[in-house]
């Protein structure tokens, strides 16, 4: 059962993920045990192929584990069917992707509003929260623009707003600064750190960007599908 008061947002126990690559089994994750608590600002780092994105996919329920179990916000993911997983992600996880991945034919407001729309939040409430979150990410006055008319930094701010507007327990960001210049990336990270402090939402990054590593309060380093190190900063 979901328990919003519990401290552990992610609990991964003995997670193994094996892919079938044209008949050849490939172990992307080789046994990970990890617990991430509420309000953490954690970066999962490691070289390409270390299993960062795969780990993010399995802890968010986008992909299934081969062995082991994952509890997210107290719910065991492996026991859910497709529809339950969709609803669970909708209500508990915000996603930020490397390439922003906004819906280009929807306006900024419609993009941010989308998750609340599928949650069934009433219109007036949706609009109020969209206005609030756009103000928080510094995009007041951009509500009616479509993504192709925004800069990369602005698009990623919209993506952050979309990820946070429904107030999920967890925000997962896969290489969120990879397509941004260093100044814009730093500004975005500072903004996310600020939102993390103010909202208490848990942020988990998959990255090899130094700027994120510097700002993260905890660094989990993966290598060859295993945790090589797990350091928390004071």
């Amino acid at each position, binding site marked *: 059962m979901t328990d919003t008061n519990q401290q552990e947002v992610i609990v991964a126990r003995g997670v193994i993920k094996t892919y079938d690559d044209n008949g050849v089994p490939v172990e992307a994750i080789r046994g990970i045990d990890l617990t991430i608590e509420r309000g953490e600002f954690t970066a999962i780092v490691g070289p390409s192929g270390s299993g960062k994105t795969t780990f993010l*996919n399995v802890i*968010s329920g*986008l*992909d299934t584990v081969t062995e082991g179990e994952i509890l997210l916000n107290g719910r065991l993911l492996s026991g859910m069917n*497709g*529809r339950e997983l*969709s*609803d*669970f*992600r*909708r*209500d508990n996880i*915000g*996603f930020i*992707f490397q*390439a922003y*991945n906004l*819906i*280009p*034919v*929807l306006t900024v407001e*419609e993009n941010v509003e*989308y*998750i609340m*729309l*599928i*949650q069934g939040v009433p219109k007036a409430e949706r609009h109020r929260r969209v206005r609030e979150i756009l103000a928080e990410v510094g995009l007041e006055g951009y509500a009616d623009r479509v993504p192709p008319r925004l800069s990369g930094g602005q698009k990623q701010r919209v993506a952050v707003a*979309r990820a946070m507007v429904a107030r999920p327990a967890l925000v997962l960001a896969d290489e969120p600064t990879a397509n941004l210049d260093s100044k814009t990336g730093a500004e975005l990270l500072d903004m996310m750190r600020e939102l993390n402090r103010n909202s208490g939402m848990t942020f988990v990054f998959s990255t090899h960007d130094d700027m994120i590593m510097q700002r993260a309060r905890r660094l989990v380093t993966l290598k060859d599908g295993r945790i090589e190190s797990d350091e928390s900063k004071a």
Partner: protein
Amino acid sequence: MWTYIKLAWRNLFRNKRRTFIAGSAIGIGLAALIFTDAIMIGMKDNLIHSATASFLGEGQIHHREFRQTIDVDLTITDGHAVLADLAEEPLVEHTAPRTMAFGMITSPANVSSVSMFGVDPVVEPYLSQIDEAIVEGSYFGKNTGHEILIGSKLAEILEVGLGDRVVMTVAQAHTGELSQELFRVSGIFHFHVRELDRSMAFVRLDKSQEMLNLGSEFHEIVIKFTDIEFSSNTDHPFWEKYSGEDNEALGWPALLPQLKAAFDMSQYSMFLIGLILFAVVSLGIINTLFMSMHERMFEFGVLRAVGTRPLAMGRLILFEAGALAIISIVLGTIIGFITTYIVTKTGIDYQGIEFVGAYFRELLYPVMQVQQFIYYPIYVFIFTMIIGLYPAAYAARLSPAEAMRKAY
């Protein structure tokens, strides 16, 4: 729901050129259906008019056994009373009595079997086009009692021309005695139908009654209705009223079953044409939707990742199919209307071509009907939605991680 409709509509215009090409392809299919249907109706009307107006009439009354036996004894029971009743029928425009008998026609050069019809020269032109089909001579001009009209092919066989003498031999009613009469060819007709031009001869009704020993009786009443639709409406009480114990009243579909069968087959052909067109169009729809989906695979993954349910993903694709159908229907209806309208003005020249005993005597004009612009677009819409189920099911089954992987 509204969000998905809006999203689907806008998605369709992300690649305007592709949408326009796909919409045009489906639209042309729809236009072809509308045009073909209009042509079919025009062809049917043309042929029915040609068949009924030339000689057959829209309906006929005979003695019940006459059509099977062509026995000259079998005249219509109470023929004059039937004629009088028909004159009072509001749905009947004209009637004409006829006699008919098989006989031999002999010229100095040759002899041939022939169907001799006795017609009333005054009322017959309202029911048939014998007068219009005369290519030499005239239609029962001066009443000498010995005029005969023969077909062009028969004139060739007999090697006769206008004014030449021929002898008609028929068997009389009741006695079976042979009756011979000398006629002069007063007119040669050409119906463009081999059977009619080769084996028919027309004489005055009173002369034929005299030859056949019929008194004032006759074998056939030909009917023209105020609306030709009555002739094919077999449920109309008219047919029962005039089909008694002795007589039978029949509309053109019963009199010319081969034409009716050909039209039924045309309906089936139309169905097949539609099916083939739809099959071609369906490939276009599937291709367009899948191309559009593959371009947006990561986006689909994102939509699924943020919590869009599988069914909602499928619904989005179905709405896109629906939006494509609407664009196609608008294009197809416009193209179909313009094309068909132009041809309704110019016509298509099939004149002289014979088709199961009937032939095109006039330009073929397609017939536009409101239903064509209602039903065919509805079929296209439904069909597109059905075809859209396949890509919709594909989208619904996509797992978010798989969609994101496929995007790379």
